[in-house]
């Protein structure tokens, strides 16, 4: 069946089956590889995408449910250079293997949009659905807090 959706600002019409999962369709048909396959059951967050600005686990969404929605992945927010948050993640050496990074960048981006000046607890809460096995989260949380303060200063 036909599926129309927007991915990173670009309109797509795709041929999908009813059982197809959005994560697979994004990776295999659209070629957007930053959402990763980590558990396929909603536990790890490595497949996180933004759907109409809200973070969702794309392994739990059927492709047909994305009809008409606006999807953003890390590729989408990186076209025009890194965001302030991404720059801080880089300069802070926040990630190690980086497999969790696309999901965490998006979860943190969403958080900063909803709450430009989050507390440590807010950051922990926003990232609690994204598992990272390498970093112990500390350097990731630090960078998000730093990005938050930066945004808080701008009126």
């Amino acid at each position, binding site marked *: 069946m036909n599926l129309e959706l927007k991915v990173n600002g670009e309109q797509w019409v795709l041929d999908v089956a009813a059982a197809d999962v959005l994560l697979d369709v994004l990776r295999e048909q659209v070629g957007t590889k930053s959402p990763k396959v980590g558990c396929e059951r909603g536990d790890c967050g490595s497949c996180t995408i933004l759907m109409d600005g809200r973070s969702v686990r794309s392994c739990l969404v059927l492709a047909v449910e994305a009809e008409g929605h606006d999807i953003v992945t890390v590729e989408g927010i990186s076209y025009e250079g890194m965001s302030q948050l991404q720059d801080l993640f880089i300069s802070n050496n926040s990630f190690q293997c*980086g497999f969790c990074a696309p999901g965490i960048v998006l979860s943190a981006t969403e958080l900063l949009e909803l709450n430009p000046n989050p507390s440590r607890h807010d950051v922990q809460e926003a990232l609690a659905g994204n*598992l990272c096995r390498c970093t112990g989260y500390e350097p990731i949380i630090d960078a998000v807090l730093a990005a938050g303060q930066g945004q808080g200063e701008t009126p």
Partner: protein
Amino acid sequence: MTTTFPFEADAKEDELKAVGTDAVRIDGLDKISGAAEFVDDIDFGPGLLHAAIVESPHAFARIVSIDTTEAARAKGVVRVVTGKDFPYKFGMYMEDRYIFAQDHVRFVGEQVAGVIARSHREAVQAAKLVEVEYEVLNPILDPKQAFEEDADLIHPELADYTHVPWFFPKADTNIAHWRKIRKGDTEKAFAEADYVLEDTYFVPRYAHCAIEPHVTVSKLDQADRLTVWTASQSPHTQRHLFAQALEPLGFTHKDVRVITPYIGGGFGGKAGVSMEILGAAMATLVKGRPLKLRWTREQEFYNTYQRQGVTAELKVGVMDDGTITAVEHKLYWDAGAYVEYGANVVNAAGLSATGPYRVPNISNDSLCMYTNLPPGGPYRGFGYSEFHFGLESHMDRIAEAIGMDPVEFRRKNAIVEGDELSYGGHMNPSGMIEAIDKVADAIEWGVEEQSDNPNTVMGKGIALFWKAPAMPPNASSASFLKFNEDGSINITVSGMELGQGYLTVMAQIASEILTVPVEKIRVETPDTDRNPYEWQTVASHVTWSSGLAVEKAAVEARAKIFDVIHQVYGYEDDSLYLENEKVKCKTDPVFEKPLSDFVIDGIQTDEGTWRGGPIIASGKFMPEFTNALSDPETGQGGHPNVHYTVGATGVVVEIDKDTGRIWVRKAALAVDAGKAINPDLVKGQIVGGLVQGLATVLYEDMRFDEAGKMMNPNFTDYKIPTAFDIPDEVVPIIVEVPQPDGPFGARGVGEHTMIAAAPVIANAVYDALGVRIKSMPVTQEKVAMAYLEKSTS
């Protein structure tokens, strides 16, 4: 203190420009922008085939028959394979494993057959149609049970297996390897000791839980070249094992190519060869078509290496003044169904099971027991995390029994440079005492803390750790280095960027010697056809070993640069030096020649001809001072370990007396990095490793049912830490007592940071509540129950 480095006659520690700085990771942008490509992200076009594996539902059974007729007929299926197609053994240190099961299955999940289909879904569907008839046997799930004299044999052909010379399997038993250490006279020492403590500690299995599952794509092309793209820590070792195992099909090393892009975490789980051999073998039957095999999260839990469980019987004798006089450590490892890699974990632990202490009389037995659980194997810490739990718990108990402060007791007995090791060699320079003092300081050891909450109590704990790289005595690293027109550099090595920051650290080492900034150096992930040899990225050895190879390549490149300048301008080589990407001369202060002027095109002479040409160099390192020859009965005589890295961990915990819930309020960890090439990345290893270690003691709990089936192979039931489950504060401490043969004095730290995490919690729990938990994990439930029992008795 100023240290001068062996390969680096000019460099003084206080003049370092790149080494010792918090350089930003050279792979940072790749990973944050989404550019980083992992194996599963590579496109292979419409010809890509998918594989699914038929697995044994039984822990121990004889295969009576396999019927693949239905599966072969199913929609989309290209080929069904079984053990008959590949009757070949493989293994890292001992060849005890078949690609697909032959006549027996020995753990739940073992691969019995494989289906190749045009889509993943079709492969999975068809795999369900393969009919296997089994004669079920009684599984052995406990290492002590496997050790019993009349135990059923899991590998009756053990005597015929080929293995490395430092393994000692016992034919007609389940003992795949028995590492013994006998030093001094333990019997006499225990008899003379003022105090002896003997007890048993239990450590269960654990899963690595890299967030990227194992995945491999293999393709045999029409010209008979086999290329394998794989999420691996070990490209060259994989190539070697693929070539060895598939040799009967006519493959040589030249025909096999392994390409390893970025990898989403390893922790030992992606070392050696596990599921990758299935893909490589199956691909040989579908020539011309790439074949993908990706593990599900469930398979990731039960059909890759697991960290081995251990039952540790420990006896330690001390004198009244606190001097340790004897250690007897019997380690019964639950090594699983195949020990081709795991037996070396057992070996490494046996060599070092005294812990970081000076012990004159030693009796260690480290027993690699076959069981019918998934194959054990390497996991960050490589046996040391496992035995440190009991050992460091025991040290606290002894200190208390003889009325000595646990920190003082450890300071008194800690091994220092020159002390004799259990196998007879001598301890390398180390900053253990400094590490102990700094950690004790950071957690304000000796200062009692009170909780404001009447339901909770505070406690403090301390634990030490040590670990040596466990590797064959001739494990090597190599590097190639080449300059580009603009004076930038490409380096190829075959260590893996597991996340630890290896690529960045290699760039920093080259930058230091060649004065080219880190941002102008690209270090690529491996391709065995193009990158030079590296044994594997394990054992926390690549900063040291591959770092030395890169250092040598950079020194060679510098010599070639000076040689060109000498040929054209006549300056003596030893008068030349590099500064800010230029060649300068001590005897001619006005002379300077930018590298970008000549590192590709050379320099024109007065006659109009040219000298020089592309500057390329190579380096290699092999630890030529080690050997694994030792007396099987005593372990004496060899030099199996290159050096030890040491350190200390301390925590402050708050515990709810009723529920047993533990909060880590503060954790401090000091590790002796020798020289931190990049302190920020070392801190990353400290925080990440510590949290991974804390998870093994606080949250993770692998469960098997009575039939040997893992009951919680997913992240809902096997809990790893989220952003909430971390200490309130971590104090990373870097100690730097240089490793004399290390690059700029560096030694590895990657695994060490999780080793003492479990006993430090057990010790803090005791400090807070007076209850001693002797089995991991130290769950809320165990703590609450033990405290209830103690307060009601």
